[in-house]
């Protein structure tokens, strides 16, 4: 048996070996900076030692000439989600949870491991002002949905601003839902926060008087937001709205954790810094609708320069395979130091997701989520040799070649069996392939549960 039961499925969970990387260029993404000819030892899924002349390890990898980096973390991903990335039917759907619809069989998981990604923050789409609860996963290819979850990650939620949420480009049928303007977006959020606080009061009162109380999953999630226990990742483009949300949060005494996309972030970087928000942007993806015309490729570099913890994200199953290159673009456009550029897809997203205590950098005691590159990780010409999650080698270029061979042989064998069956008169299937291999984006709004 292999998990998933399809291409590149693993017959066994990769073992948690004690591995010694010898002589690598180690990008720690921490205070130690980039270390030449350095050894890194991992044991029981953790980074055990960093230094020169280390020994031990059941597996010793000659990593001379190679580069070792922390695993890439994607702040904004829509992979591995079953049947709908948006619950965009209501303006507020804080009750829905991405964590309940993880699809562990999505081939994107494997493809992204091959691009050095070790953790992905699975986002609800941007069809409504307050979307669903989000889920951080580690790319433990082969595990079931529960096994993918990043244990101990603080809860997060999707907010969204702008054209999508006021249904600007949805067509003539969508003209009645509140809000239809950016002003309305602010008002419905304020209304929701107030309702959450009222809910808290009513719940306390009912408890004190021993009266029945209607639990409301939506208000409970919103209350966590207002109480600073659930962190907002907000889809955002336009400066006025970014200011609006920060001021609204301050009115209720909490902070916006991360503005995602944030293509006009360079205009309001100072205010974001004062508020304590972080930013996760595209390197050079813009002009796909009116509100993103003001984007500039210097945006991440400018925000980082202003002291904002800045990351680059994918919002796209394909782009996620090369987030290292997206990060590197800021060297070209914004004269960013290479070390800082790499941090934009490692420790910075870890900080934004509040998991930087366990992942995002190569430091003793952290999770052994590592990528071994055959060259400088910021070069277009470098590729991933191995990707480790929790000290398990979930991608290995040589094993990948073997798996391709295995799958080719498997396919040939099964095609022969199918031909024999067809030859003996069995009916060929008239149904198309079952798996739709859907790659979601933020704006995908369709009914995935209609009909029977």
């Amino acid at each position, binding site marked *: 048996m292999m998990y998933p039961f399809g291409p590149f499925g693993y017959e066994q969970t990769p073992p948690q070996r004690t591995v010694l990387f010898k002589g690598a260029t180690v990008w720690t993404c921490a205070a130690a900076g980039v270390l030449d000819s350095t050894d890194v030892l991992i044991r029981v899924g953790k980074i055990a030692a960093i230094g020169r002349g280390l020994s031990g390890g059941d597996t010793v990898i000659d990593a001379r000439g190679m580069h070792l980096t922390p695993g890439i973390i994607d702040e904004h991903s829509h992979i591995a989600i079953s049947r709908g990335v948006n619950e*965009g039917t209501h303006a507020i759907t804080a*009750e829905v949870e991405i964590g309940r619809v993880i699809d562990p069989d999505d081939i994107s998981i494997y493809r992204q491991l091959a691009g050095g990604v070790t953790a992905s923050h699975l986002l609800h789409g941007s069809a409504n002002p307050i979307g669903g609860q989000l889920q951080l996963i580690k790319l433990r290819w082969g595990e079931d949905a529960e096994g993918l979850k990043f244990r101990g990650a603080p809860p997060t939620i999707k907010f969204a601003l702008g054209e999508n949420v006021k249904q600007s480009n949805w067509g003539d049928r969508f003209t009645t839902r509140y809000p239809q303007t950016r002003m309305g977006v602010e008002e419905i959020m304020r209304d929701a926060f107030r309702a959450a606080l009222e809910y808290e009061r009513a719940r306390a009162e009912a408890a004190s008087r021993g009266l029945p109380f209607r639990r409301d999953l939506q208000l409970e999630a919103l209350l966590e937001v207002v109480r600073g226990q659930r962190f907002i990742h907000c889809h955002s483009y336009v400066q006025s709205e970014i200011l609006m949300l920060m001021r609204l949060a301050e009115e209720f005494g909490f902070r916006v954790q991360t503005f995602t996309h944030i293509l006009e972030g360079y205009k309001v970087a100072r205010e974001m810094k004062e508020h304590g928000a972080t930013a996760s942007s595209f390197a050079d993806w813009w002009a796909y609708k009116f509100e993103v015309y003001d984007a500039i490729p210097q945006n991440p570099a400018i925000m980082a320069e202003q002291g904002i913890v800045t990351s680059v994200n994918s919002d796209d199953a394909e782009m996620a395979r090369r987030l290292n290159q997206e990060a590197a673009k800021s060297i070209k456009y914004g004269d960013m130091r290479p070390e800082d550029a790499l941090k934009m897809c490692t420790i910075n997203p870890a900080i934004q997701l509040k998991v930087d205590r366990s992942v995002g950098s190569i430091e003793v005691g952290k999770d052994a989520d590592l990528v071994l590159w055959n060259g400088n990780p910021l070069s277009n010409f470098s590729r991933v040799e191995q990707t480790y999650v929790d000290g398990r080698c979930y991608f290995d270029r040589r094993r990948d070649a073997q798996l391709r061979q295995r799958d080719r042989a498997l396919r040939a064998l099964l095609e022969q069996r199918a031909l024999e069956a067809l030859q003996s008169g069995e009916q060929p299937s*008239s149904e198309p392939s079952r798996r739709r291999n859907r790659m979601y984006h933020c704006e995908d709004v369709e009914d995935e549960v209609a009909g029977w």
Partner: protein
Amino acid sequence: MKHVLAAVVVLVVSTSAQQTTRPVEGLRAKPIRYLALTNLTVIAEPGVKLENATVVVRDGVIENVGQGIPLPRGATVRDCRGLWCYAGFIEPYALERDTLYRFDDDESAQTPQTPQATHWNQAIHPHVRAIERLSLSDRQLDSYRKLGFCALHVGVGDGIMRGTSALVLAKSGTLAETTLRSDVAQLLSFRKGSSRTPYPSSLMGCIALIRQTLLDAAWYDAAQKAYTAGKLTERPETNVSLQALAQAMAAKQLFVFETEDEHDILRAASIAKEHGLDAIYVGTGREYRRLPSLVRAGSRLIVPLNFPDVPDVSSYDRALDVSLEDLLHWDAAPENPYRCDSAGLWFCLTTYRLNDRQSFWTRLRRAVQYGLSPQTALAALTTRPAELLGVGSQLGKLQRGYRANLVLANGDLFAEDAEVLSVFIEGDEYRISKPVPEVRGVWRGVIGSDSVRLSIAGSRTQPTATVQYADRSARARVALQEGTLVVTVSADSLGLGSGMLRMSARPDSAQDAIGGVAVFADGSTRRWGCTSHRAIPRYHVEKANRAASLDRCDDVSVRTIRI
């Protein structure tokens, strides 16, 4: 031969087996409802086989089962030599698609309102009761009876919370007459059906809506009580949907979740665990892909036999459209029941999700070939669904005091291409089809005084034949007409005169012989007869056909012709 396959179900004696309030029109019927079926191979329950046994049925109930029991006075006795008898099968998921909502094409409304005191979301209607909505046609019932199903767990297949199911007997009559248990289970799915409420549009929305509704039901009950007692000033809404759901939860009713893939089972199981529901999951045949996770979740399943058709790899271009995952699933799917069983999962079997329900037995035998034990398969059709649906002491076994639901077959249904001949539902017999006699093999005998040899091959229901006479041989057309074998062959090519020669015969099971009348072109007749020479063991017939030579098959076995 088509008429044999498209079996007609005939109700032999129509009676009622329960007390009813309906006025009698015309004369009262008072048939004898006392029947002894003798010389049966009885499978009293999975793993308990009684040879030469008798089943006594009286007034819709099994009065006695066993070997060597005295024949009761006054009972009709039927010799069932060669027949097998099973407890009537139970279909655990007979969903009928009934559309609850019909709307005009106004798509602008964001949230269409239902004016009654029901749930705000049209996909949520736990108050809908199958016994108040469904009408089962005889045609639908027939399609189950032909397979041996005597009881059906029926429900309305529309929406996310679909309402309550009922356990009904698969016999003709109103639901008032045929229902064994009403409100057996709450049915749920992750599909909106005919609902026009836009929310939810995603799987995660479905899950959130189900969870919130379960919470609301728990609250509803308490809030209504508190309000009536004057403790609440804020008046809680009146809502029959929540009321019904609250009752179901309080009564620990079964919750049946229909899933769309193996991961859905885990999703539903986490809802069930969170709300303390007694749940079972209707699978997709893909369960084998995540067995360890399903076992960890402690899931009980209703497993379909929807093995996919062969992926079309007939040309290079078509093969490009077939994924490796599809090929793997096609190859592994028939093993799904076996693998579920080996992993220790508890499951019932269903005809649900089959495009052609009548392919059920072919598929089940395939699952048995792929390792599923016949004993588990039988339990998954009898004792397990009976226990699941709360009728373990009435259905699922051939035992004294149980409802007289029986299946008569002309062989072991799980091993060979035996057929269901009759089902008895509360003692009322529905005859399914005449058995097709096994005539394949090589026969030797005489026409008049001359030697003749008859080789019959092909499939059991569509045999082909060759006649050899003296040193000539000719292909013959062969047909089975209500148990009579008719062989038509050109007399010319056999050197037996001109025109066509018709030979008809009734196979004689006792003598292992075949014989009858041959009619020549001029109208003259001669007797003919043959005895079995080298019979082909039936399990190997298909293989032998492929080998293309009957004589190469060396196995010789004793033939039994069953009628």
